[in-house]
């Protein structure tokens, strides 16, 4: 047999190896040392998770979509820098509220143009809001309820008439637009609502040209409550913001380009392009930041330490996010739930009304260790809160009472619960968290372990379930306790206390928490135009949350941002969607 073949094979193998060894160092870009290379001048690139759901302001209700809409569109007003309750004019340059707070009138700024060059008029503003109210995809859970609530005192369009919508928003003359409320409404709250992406002003002529609602009332219901696939503006956008939509290629990326018609002047826009890439793999995002291919990356809390003290990375910390995670006690568990054992307080289960006993709720609250939770699950970057009204909201009271871990008090309350039966017989039930959420898993384990340590007869098992199953079980009231977080729509206490405490609120309803006093306070606070009275109401609600203990309020996370050091001017406003903040006021330069 000839020796020709092995030689060839060996030659190829050795050649490939040699080639690799020779080429790689030659191509090398620094061998891991040094800082981050400066790339893509004039372009802001961020890599994050998730993906844009829709570019229709009447549908988009997620932060990824909201962030892009924030760059493309402008509303009548925006938040003033880092403030959450003072405003600057955008499409409007001034506004005035009626003395009885039942109307607000905006003067439309002259000279504002959409990115296609069309002039922005009062008619565009009227059309935009009426169009959002007409579209209102309430089956899809859209954000338009926030407009309906102040304007018509309803939560969706299922029972409104064309006349009601038409009267809610009206053009006063060529430069003024007026909003009419069915009753007095706090103007600060309404302006906060207008700051969201659901307040975007779109180009009327362009939208009609795309096939959207034609501004007539004969068949407006044809455009009402559409399915996602029927949205005309799902993948299109035409706003007056600093950037315009260039290309959206779901799910991978969305590219925006400078709006050369921007009313503040083309030269004021700091980036030619904004590119957002949705990359699920953390290692890829991290390497992109270190290679200079991204200016900002989303970093999971558990990986934050990997980017600390890295040359070229600007880690901005201690940002009080307007979010809160909480345990909720289910006071009316369905009797056939498989997570309550025997369904009786016989040592092998819990009764469906187990958490109606205030002693159980308080005992459990004292059994939770916030210090361990903040250290282990939150990497030390969170602050305990005692009620849904968190830091950064008006009327937040830092000195309102909070529970703290105390085995003595926990023992005392648990001994008193169910007239001593709980302490004597013990109990068994299951705590559920959504699969993959290590933070929530840690919270469950802390509570379960502490309860077991207090009384070994109190046995709580921890189980992971898919997110879809978890949601379904909240709806069916199957879980003894559930754990979930809240992202606000706008920075008003009402947006927090309503879901947590009102008997028809998103969470309170499914835990069967019901208090006539609480309901009346919340309803009064929502529409009160008296700041002093609102302060009293929200102060009282914070106290009631502590006294009633309908859940274990966990923590308000402190966020971080990881930019390259080439990015300057970041300002944190907790209401801004996305990680980047207000890019219009930021710059990118190589020092």
């Amino acid at each position, binding site marked *: 047999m000839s020796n020709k073949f092995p030689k060839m*094979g*060996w030659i190829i193998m050795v050649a490939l190896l040699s080639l690799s060894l020779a080429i790689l160092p030659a191509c090398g*870009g620094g061998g891991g040392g040094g800082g981050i290379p400066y790339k893509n001048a004039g372009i802001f690139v961020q890599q994050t998770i998730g993906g844009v759901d829709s570019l229709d302001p009447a549908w988009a209700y997620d932060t990824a979509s909201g962030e892009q809409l924030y760059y493309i569109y402008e509303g009548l007003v925006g938040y003033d820098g880092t403030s959450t309750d003072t405003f600057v004019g955008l499409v409007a340059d001034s506004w005035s509220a009626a003395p009885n707070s039942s109307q607000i009138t905006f003067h439309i700024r002259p000279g504002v143009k959409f990115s296609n060059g069309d002039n922005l008029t009062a008619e565009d503003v009227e059309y935009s809001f009426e169009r959002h109210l007409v579209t209102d995809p309430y089956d899809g859970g859209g954000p338009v309820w926030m407009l309906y609530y102040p304007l018509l005192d309803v939560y969706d369009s299922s029972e409104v008439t064309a006349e009601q919508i038409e009267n809610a928003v009206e053009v006063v003359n060529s430069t003024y637009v007026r909003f009419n409320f069915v009753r007095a409404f706090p103007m600060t709250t309404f302006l906060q609502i207008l700051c969201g992406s659901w307040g975007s002003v779109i180009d009327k002529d362009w939208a009609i040209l795309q096939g959207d609602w034609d501004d007539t009332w004969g068949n407006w219901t044809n455009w009402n409550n559409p399915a996602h696939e029927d949205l005309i503006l799902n993948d299109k956008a035409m706003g007056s913001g600093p950037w315009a939509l260039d290309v959206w290629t779901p799910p991978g990326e969305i*590219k925006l380009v400078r709006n050369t018609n921007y009313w503040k002047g083309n030269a004021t826009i700091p980036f030619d392009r904004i590119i957002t890439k949705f990359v699920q793999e953390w290692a890829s995002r991290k390497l*992109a930041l270190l290679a200079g291919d991204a200016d900002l990356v989303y970093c999971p809390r558990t990986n934050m330490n990997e980017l600390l003290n890295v040359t070229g990375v600007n880690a901005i910390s201690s940002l009080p996010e307007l979010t809160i995670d909480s345990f909720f006690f289910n006071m009316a568990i369905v009797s056939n739930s498989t997570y309550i054992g025997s369904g009786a307080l016989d040592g092998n289960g819990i009764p469906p009304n187990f958490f109606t006993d205030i002693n159980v709720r308080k005992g459990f609250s004292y059994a939770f260790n916030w210090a361990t939770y903040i250290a282990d699950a939150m990497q030390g970057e969170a602050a305990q809160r005692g009620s849904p009204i968190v830091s950064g909201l008006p009327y937040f009271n830092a000195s309102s009472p909070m529970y703290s871990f105390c085995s003595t008090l926990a023992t005392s309350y648990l001994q008193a619960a169910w007239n001593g039966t709980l302490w004597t017989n013990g109990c068994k039930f299951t705590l559920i968290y959504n699969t993959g959420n290590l933070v929530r898993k840690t919270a469950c384990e802390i509570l379960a372990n502490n309860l077991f340590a207090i009384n070994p007869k109190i046995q709580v098992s921890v189980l992971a379930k898919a997110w879809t199953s978890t949601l379904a079980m909240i709806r069916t009231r199957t879980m003894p306790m559930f754990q979930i977080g809240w992202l606000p729509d706008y920075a008003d206490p009402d947006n927090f206390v309503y879901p947590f405490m009102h008997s028809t609120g998103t969470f309170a309803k499914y835990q069967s928490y019901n208090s006539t006093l609480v309901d009346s306070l919340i309803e009064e606070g929502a529409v009160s135009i008296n700041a002093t009275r609102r302060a009293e109401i929200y102060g009282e609600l914070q106290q009631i949350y502590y006294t009633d203990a309908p859940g274990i309020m966990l923590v308000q996370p402190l966020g971080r941002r990881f930019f390259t050091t080439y990015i300057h001017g970041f300002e944190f406003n907790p209401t801004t969607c996305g990680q980047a903040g207000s890019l219009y006021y930021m710059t990118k330069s190589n020092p």
Partner: protein
Amino acid sequence: MWSGWQSVLHDQVESVAGASLDIASDGRKVKRPPPASGGLLTFSKGLWYKGGALGLRAYIVRRVLLLIPVLVGVTLFIFGITMLFSPLERATLYVTNIRQLDNLPAVIEKYGLDRPFVIQYGTWLGQVLRGNLGWSQVISMRVGEALIRSIPATLELAIFAVPIIILTGIFFGTRAAAHKDKPFDHATRVVAIMGWSLPSFWLGLILLMIFYGYFRGLLPPGRLSITAGILVDSAGFIRYTHLNTIDAILNLNGTVLLDALRHLILPVATISVINVAFIMRLMRSSMLESLGKGYILTARAKGLAERVVVNKHARRNALIPVITVSGYLFAGLASGAVITESIFSFQGIGWFAWQAAVRLDIASVLGFALFSAFLFVIINLIVDILYTRVDPRVRLGQGVQ
């Protein structure tokens, strides 16, 4: 299923090989009609023999018609599995916001999620027949469009990876067999075992850390860099195929071509390292079997050069199992290399299917299943036709002489 069928075919081919070939002194094969009976004859009658081009066409039509029960079966199975989830759980798929919990009954009614299985499946099938695969919650677009958008990324990976895998596997497998138990054989065996044993997510991450992390941006993930992406999105660049390399060539744009190739190296390498090992071992064992046949002994006895014996006579028969496996390899890669696509942000079919499965996006999962089953049946058909190119005794339409 395929391996058993393939091995029967292989045995049958081997059983008549010696009788059907004469070897000329210069190494050329002299074709001689096969006998009127035997393994190949039986096979040929069963599959091909209809006479002329009509036979090939009839065969293709029959195989394409087979698609219908395959697709119905696959989708019925997957649809059945999703029915194990309660209507409420399936309705939560439509929940993009926690506030929507109240609307779940309306969602169930709107999409008929509580109707009997047969009605739900029938409704879906009716939509599909009208060209509507449903709405993808994962990508926020129609499933058909999502599949079309995802295919180019995966196809580009497969187009580059499969030839590398097959040619490298055949080359090293052939040489390993030709030098059985020699150092070269041992070396390829070690390399093959290492390649086969490496978890793709680990290999991908390591490659990424070295060539993107350590060498700061040398071989990046994704499909294009920022600047090349802007070029591709510009009005002057026409997207003929959405395969970046092909489009770059058609647009005569060297910048985009080089950039696209740079982004392909790591994912292609990750896929190749693992799959080359398999092809190499398969080729080696198939070659060893061929080299032990009588006609090889005859060829050597006639004084043919070893290169001719190995490359022309032994390798040709040994290729049949490799072709079968290569077809499935291509189908497998084209229907998604989940881990590789995820690690390298190559958002193709695999990534789409993974996301759909994780989020219980039923319409997307069913759409992917349809695509995948379709692809496998078609590639199976192509592989069958390819056999005729490998072995001159198998000729579509010529039948048995």
